[in-house]
């Protein structure tokens, strides 16, 4: 999982029941729109995040196009917590990718 995805998930997990629109997430996470939307698309495909159109009351009164809101699904919130925890654990105990056998490099 990329760092950006982790940031988005952390932002959404701050209040899993709260719906947020894309621009609010960009501001919250501090990432550009071109990074946030692919992540949201991916999370939506995995059904971690659900999206829905804004209620007509708000945008018609304000006279602007409707927005799409994103929110973690109950299952998605649990999976996100689990994924973040496992990422954190992996960071805490890094595994050596290259384990040189002792004596080979220094052998004569």
């Amino acid at each position: 999982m990329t760092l950006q995805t982790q940031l988005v998930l952390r932002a959404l997990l701050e209040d899993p029941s709260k719906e947020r629109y894309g621009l609010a997430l960009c501001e919250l996470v501090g990432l550009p729109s071109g990074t946030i939307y692919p992540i949201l698309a991916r999370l939506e495909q995995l059904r971690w995040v659900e999206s829905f159109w804004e209620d007509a009351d708000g945008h018609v009164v304000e006279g602007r196009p409707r927005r799409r809101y994103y929110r973690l699904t109950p299952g998605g919130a649990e999976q996100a917590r689990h994924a973040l925890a496992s990422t954190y654990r992996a960071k805490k105990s890094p595994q050596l990718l290259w384990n040189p056998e002792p004596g080979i490099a220094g052998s004569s």
Partner: protein
Amino acid sequence: MSCRETYLAGACAAARAAYEVAKEHVALMEAAAAHAEDDAAAAAAAAGRRGSTEYVLAAGAARMRAYFAGHNAAVARAQVEHAAMRVRLAAAGLEHEQHWRQRLHLQRLTVRSREASTRTRARRAPAASISLLALSTVLLPAQQRPRWLEDWRGELGALETRRARFRFVRELLRGMPRMAWSLRYPVPSMAGAGSPRNHGRS
């Protein structure tokens, strides 16, 4: 307030009322459509053996009712859009009036009409940004283009400054290949999400 301004402010209020009525109508029609769907299923179940003439007739009639109810709901939704457009047009008329009255040094608009105008002001996303985004969505799967474009149009409409809109569009254009990749090649788990480089890793 001049007669014309009074008329335009009234038009604003009337359009808003029409919008409210249309919205209630949509709720009613959607409820009717849902009821018709249930009715169709119940009628088909009650008509007896699957494949029999009674079954086919009952199911066909119920389906027809459900179709018409769905059509009515769609028409009602279009009426809401139309009412919303009328609200915007009325507000735009009021703004236009205000603009010309100020330019011609005529009587100033009252606070009330100005408030009505700004409250219902049509804030549309700039056409150039939308066209550019629409062009770049060619990379996305065809069935998903309208949904994302409308999403971004909503965000663009909310951005106040030209600089903010430019930045939003620029970053979206930069991320469009990644977006296309994400939509075209879904990953089975989150382990590979976020970056095309990680695609396929579990």
